[in-house]
């Protein structure tokens, strides 16, 4: 799948890094030429300080679909359910919550087809769940969950949405391998201006 995205974002960057360091010229896919007049620029402005590996590691909390960025630790749905029922249910409800209930957050568990767009029927990658819950949830206390808790919650949400079984363990190896039901529905943008409406 990743090849697809690389191709669709392809663009020719032609940096005139010749001897004279003239200017950087960019030719976009639409054929526009943008040039920044950097003729008089030094090769570096010597602004900014080096980012140390330790510093980067602290900030670099993102998780990619191929699993890069997933930390050590693991979790199962049963433990995740306990956390969910204390830290998440008030805003997100359960599969049995009445559809009329006024919830602060979106529905997270939906096993009935055509109902809410959520993890089981809409999300294309399981890694996104880990990444998002770790960075942004619980909404009232973001960043408060341990990696272990996030694995447990991820396992519970995947299991409750019938993507994985009750006894499956989620960790840095297994999570990227989970194939989400909606993944093959995702297509890149095919709008490109011009006369056609897409």
């Amino acid at each position, binding site marked *: 799948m990743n090849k697809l*995205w*690389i191709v669709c*974002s392809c663009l020719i960057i032609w940096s005139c890094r010749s001897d004279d360091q003239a200017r*950087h010229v960019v030719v976009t896919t639409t054929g*526009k030429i943008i040039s920044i007049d950097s003729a008089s620029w030094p090769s570096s402005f010597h602004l900014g300080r080096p980012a140390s590996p330790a510093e980067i590691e602290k900030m670099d909390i993102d998780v990619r679909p191929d699993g890069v960025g997933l930390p050590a630790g693991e979790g199962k749905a049963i433990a995740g359910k306990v956390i969910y029922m204390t830290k998440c249910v008030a805003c997100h409800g359960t599969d049995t919550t009445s559809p009329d209930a006024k919830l602060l957050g979106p529905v997270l568990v939906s096993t009935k087809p055509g109902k809410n767009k959520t993890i089981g029927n809409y999300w*294309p990658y399981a890694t996104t769940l880990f990444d998002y819950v770790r960075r*942004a949830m619980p909404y009232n206390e973001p960043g408060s969950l341990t990696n272990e808790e996030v694995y447990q919650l991820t396992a519970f949400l995947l299991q409750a949405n019938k993507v994985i079984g009750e006894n499956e363990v989620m960790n840095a190896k297994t999570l990227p391998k989970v194939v989400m039901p909606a993944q093959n529905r995702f297509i890149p943008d095919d709008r490109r201006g011009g006369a056609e409406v897409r």
Partner: protein
Amino acid sequence: MEEHSKDINQDKGSMGKPISRRILLGGAATAAVVMLKSSYGQIVQKAITQAELKISDPTKEPGPPPGVLGTRSTFEQPVKKPSDTSSRTPLQDLFGTITPSDLHYERHHAGVPVIDPHNYTLTIHGMVEKPLVFSLAELKRFPSVTRTFFLECSGNYRGGKEEMTPQEICGLTSQSEWTGVMLSTLFREVGVKPKASWFLAEGSDAAVMTRSVPVSKGWEDAMIAYAQNGEAIRPEQGYPARLLLPGWEGNTSVKWLRRIELSDQPFMTREETAKYSEAVKDGKIRQFSFVMDARSIITYPAYPQQLQKGWMEIRGIAWSGRGKIYKVEVSTNGGKTWNAATLQEPVLDKAHTAFRYLWDWKGGEAELMSRAIDETGYVQPTMKQLIDARGKDMGGYHLNPVTSWLVQRDGRVLFKTERQ
């Protein structure tokens, strides 16, 4: 509002000075309610305060001395329209194309953070030669650029009832003059590796919001903006620095930007998978639909204005994320015939462009429409064309339909709603 009716109490004492309304009304905060005529001729009710009443004859008493901060006239009270997650620009109250910074639309995912500019840093790392951390002062020392661009949330269409203002229909778009450093300048400084094809932009709000962006956009025209309309960027718009991707859906222009990571693939964050993706035909879901297609809206006349017969200027704004607006056409008969509107120069790339069309309303029913055509030849579609292209289950993102205003015989102007 240009004029106000003369029924403001003009009681004069024997010395010719106005009698204090505070004495008359026992110190009520609202001293009187009067009917005012807005500059478009609409009659509105307005509470007049003590301070305003004092201006009964401005030529007879000196005004306040120069101050440290300007203020709006107390007769002008444009406001944003907030919901739980966003706040809309009052397009119908604006002139020209620059949105006053305090009326810029807002959309954020966990509120507006307070960031100390002295502690602010932007880290660029990943597939680069030299991972670097920049302070705000350092970002400001780089060669700078100033450019005018619109921003628009891709979920910028509401319908469902006739009584809707331009603000309610599509107020999630605003325009500013932005100043900052081109991302390409920083890319050059850190030495982006040729194999890097995407970068992650991360904000330092409570959502630590992230989006993946093709590196090509970074080389093309992305900016790190630290100023807006001549001053430091507002907190709601990303203080002290934000990413700005001209012409692309607002969510990608990550505010409160703290980190950029170069990669050879997208990160598939929640905001580019679960959100900001839209159902199209055959059960497919369109993803990474970055560019905002061409759109326009008539902001005058529009609900809730009350028209009076005679000549008027039909006014509005048009914009395209793909380049310049080439043409705007206006119809006064529901699309039977179209006429070219006048575009206000200069017409800028990926920017709100003001248009106007002279019209003599003789009093009958009329249907006013505008459609934008951009330099790629794209013509703003109707809702029907959008449904035909994307299917009945199309999502709510990237809806840019031609908008119609139905002028009633009695001069009321109603929104012709086509979809909930």
